[in-house]
């Protein structure tokens, strides 16, 4: 096995046991990137030079006994997490040249943990999309089938892990943007509870839904990453001051006697039969581990998509107003006066999907429509949250498919936004309710495309997710495959 193929916990052991060095790991990852990146396009910006330097420093730290949880481990970061001195584009022309003078809190945490940042990953423009096709920098391809999309919006972060172009990565999840690409690329992806991981330095798409989370090769790595990035941040008002447990302590426990809810609303018409079969098999595995799987109802599920496509665009329309060509980023050279400069900058700087959502959101907030759309959506959102509160009163976790289908073909849904939006039908509710969710690989289609199962838990119960995901992973009986690149 090559170094780039290992997990964080495996490499930790190798580094501590003096079997390898961070420099060797980083070289191995760079070699891998050089070999496959042309075909996959996981990255917008590669940081080979600084990564090599950070690796040398990490090796020094290891030698002097100062190894921390991620010391020397190459990590990739979605390109909407601000990195000081490194351009942060959000996959958009309008920020193609934006270099933040600050690090996001999660970047500080990664650095404090010793991580080597290997690059900034590709994404749907401003995280708006489910296929990583709306990036100004071109689409990312699924390592399992290069004609297919990797999911989105954190497609690059998913493929970088799936194709071993990094050891783990960070993405962001507003309606499924970590979990759906994780499912489509055969990796583990978690969206933590809203307020668990600081949003400071995460370029906002929809502030009340956005949450940063990890992509990893297995559940143990997920726990390690979660340990590093979680925690209260006084720089973020919506950050929750709550203790962070050691998530790796949940890796060993079993789920005997647990109640796992299976919401009937998530096994609907339109779900791919191979996906449903794989998820049903996962339910059987969970039952085999001593958990009781019960039918639960989340009655407001049918409104999730509608609510999401009011709330998220509304917040986005306001969050994206700052990209006006005045202070940073792209500015059209055409404008002869202020108004024209604004209009041309934004017309030229934003892509179609972003413009569509800005218009949707602007409309939803307009006077005369606010009550019917935004206010109503907020009320229904509260009901959706209540459904989950109700379910978690009797359930330790909820199990659903992550995505209704495996990876679809590039271009297949680009002209049909509604079909594209439906890709997130099983993941959106989590963000609306603010609860944590994790997608774990649960098999392959006959054509060899990965399928994911999603576990959900009550707020701040990421530990339970690690426990059930880990137990499932160990006993799923699925033979781990590698994409043929």
């Amino acid at each position: 096995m090559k170094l780039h193929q290992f997990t964080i916990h495996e490499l930790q052991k190798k580094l501590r046991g003096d079997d390898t060095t961070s420099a060797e790991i980083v070289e191995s990852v760079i070699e891998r990137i050089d070999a496959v990146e042309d075909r996959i396009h996981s990255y917008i910006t590669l940081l080979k030079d600084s990564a090599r330097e950070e690796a040398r420093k990490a090796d020094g730290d290891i030698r002097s006994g100062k190894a921390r949880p991620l010391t020397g481990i190459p990590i990739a970061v979605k390109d909407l997490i601000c990195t000081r001195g490194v351009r942060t584009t959000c996959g958009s022309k309008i920020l193609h040249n934006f270099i933040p003078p600050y690090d996001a809190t999660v970047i500080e945490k990664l650095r404090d943990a010793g991580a080597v940042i290997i690059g900034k990953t590709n994404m749907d423009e401003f995280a708006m999309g489910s296929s990583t096709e709306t990036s100004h920098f071109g689409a990312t391809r699924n390592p399992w089938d290069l004609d297919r999309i990797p999911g989105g919006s954190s497609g690059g972060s998913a493929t970088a892990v799936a194709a071993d172009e990094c050891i783990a990565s960070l993405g962001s999840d507003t309606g499924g943007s970590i979990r759906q690409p994780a499912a489509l690329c055969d990796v583990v992806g978690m969206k933590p509870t809203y307020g668990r991981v600081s949003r400071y330095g995460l370029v906002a798409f929809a502030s009340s839904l956005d949450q940063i989370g990890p992509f990893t090769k297995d559940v143990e790595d997920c726990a390690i990453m979660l340990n590093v990035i979680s925690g209260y941040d006084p720089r973020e008002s919506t950050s929750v001051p709550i203790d962070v447990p050691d998530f790796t302590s949940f890796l060993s426990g079993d789920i005997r006697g647990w109640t796992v809810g299976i919401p009937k609303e998530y096994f609907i018409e339109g779900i791919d039969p191979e996906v449903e079969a794989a998820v049903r098999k996962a339910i059987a595995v969970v039952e085999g581990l001593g958990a009781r799987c019960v039918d639960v109802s989340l009655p407001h599920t049918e409104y999730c998509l509608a609510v999401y496509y009011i709330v998220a665009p509304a917040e986005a329309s306001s969050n994206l107003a700052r990209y006006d060509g005045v202070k940073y980023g792209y500015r059209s050279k055409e404008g002869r006066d202020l108004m024209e400069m604004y209009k041309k900058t934004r017309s030229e700087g934003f892509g179609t999907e972003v413009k569509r959502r800005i218009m949707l959101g602007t409309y939803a907030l307009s006077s005369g429509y606010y009550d019917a759309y935004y206010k109503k959506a907020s009320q229904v959102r509260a009901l959706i949250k209540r459904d989950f509160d109700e379910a978690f009163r009797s359930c330790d976790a909820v199990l659903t498919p992550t995505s209704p289908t495996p990876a679809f073909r590039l271009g297949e849904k680009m002209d049909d936004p509604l079909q594209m939006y439906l890709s997130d039908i099983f993941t959106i509710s989590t963000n609306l309710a603010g609860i944590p969710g994790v997608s774990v690989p649960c098999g392959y289609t006959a054509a060899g495309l990965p399928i994911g199962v999603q576990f959900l838990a009550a707020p701040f119960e990421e530990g339970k997710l690690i426990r059930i995901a880990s137990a499932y992973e160990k006993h799923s009986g699925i033979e781990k495959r590698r994409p043929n690149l």
Partner: protein
Amino acid sequence: MEYEAVIGLEVHAQLLTDSKIFCGCSTKFGAAPNANACPICLGMPGVLPVLNRKVVEYMMKMALATNCRINGRNVFARKNYFYPDLPKGYQISQYAKPPAEHGLVDVELEGGKKRIGIPRIHMEEDAGKLVHDEVQPSSYVDVNRCGVPLIEIVSEPDIRSAEEAAAYLRRLHEILVYLDICDGNMQEGSFRCDANVSIRPRGADAFGTRTELKNMNSFRNVQRALEYEIKRQQYIVEGGGQVIQETRLWDDSQGVTLPMRGKEEAHDYRYFPDPDLVTVEISDTWIEEVKKTLPELPLEKRERFIRDRGIPSYDAGVLTSSRALADYYEEAVRLCGKPKIVSNWVMGDLLRFLNEEKRDIRDCLIKPSDLAEMVNLIEDGTISGKIAKEVFEDMYRSGKAPRTIIDEKGLVQITDEEALKKTIDDIIGANPAQLEQYRSGKEKVFGYFVGQVMKATKGKANPALVNELLKKMLAP
């Protein structure tokens, strides 16, 4: 037909917090452009606002001082519009439910007190400033002011004239400065006012079409602009025309209001709750804590001065015009117990000296205890009122205690009867003609003798004693 004006005012007061409302940058006025700026001020991608609790506290002070009801759960909202001085493309403000409502203030008018309603006070962030190049067709953005905390104080349309508007504004200004939450500087924009004004036939219930007036940066300009605008509307209506709802700017040099240039677009600010900020909970305990820190307010202080100190209302008005002056006065009175005499000194010589130098009472070299001592020295006859004037000026310039000055300059009043009799004898002897005149009934000449005695004693003679002795000694 007789018309009456209907006026409502919106006041924006910058709060005197050290740092901005949502970041740690300084609020200090007059820094180099963009010196007080951070990624949050600049609305950079990914940065987040964190509320400065002091701002809430200051808002609560104003709310309590204007008899508002303070709400327990408060939400910040985004007001969305594009302008280069607004880096985020939205202003963080408050919309649906203000943190303070149902308030009122009483203003003193010539005809008595008038009560003006304050339906809302809310918190928000200030915007930046555009600096226009005088040569090139370029504008520059200065974000120093972005995020400076403001409270917006809205009045009911209870105001019926320009004079009332000015009186109401002065009242708000006075309260804000008394609370020490706003420096009240209108030139620097710390205290700004917009007005909504319409006219209607006197006694009518319905409102006329209103215009909004901006760009009035002094009390005088607010009054002038309103006077102009009321006349302008009246002229239109009387000519059979209709007032157009629009925003008009006061042009100070021409003394007129003019429609704001360019097409007036109907703004839709698309307010919605800011998802980056959490609900601000204001508990009753917090309200009580803030209440304890409230100073006595000017109107109450004025009434107390008149009632307890027994000074005229004019004096009370002057002495309470600032909290520092009132404190100064009260301290001096506490030490010497002579309210009216202290008032005379403060309103007379002290304010004259301070005003001449544009010096603040807080920088005055005369300590209230020194003034009290000086008053005591007059009262006990150590110095005369006349000499006191000289002593006072010296105290003002040098900051020395009155006793020191009196001793140094040998200004102690001559109350030695024998010594004075001797002096008077000499003067009478030297002025036989004047003596003759006095004794023949020209009483005015008495003053001449007083003057001579004072001259001979360099003003140190006790005037009462001089009078008494002269009367006796001049008598035939």
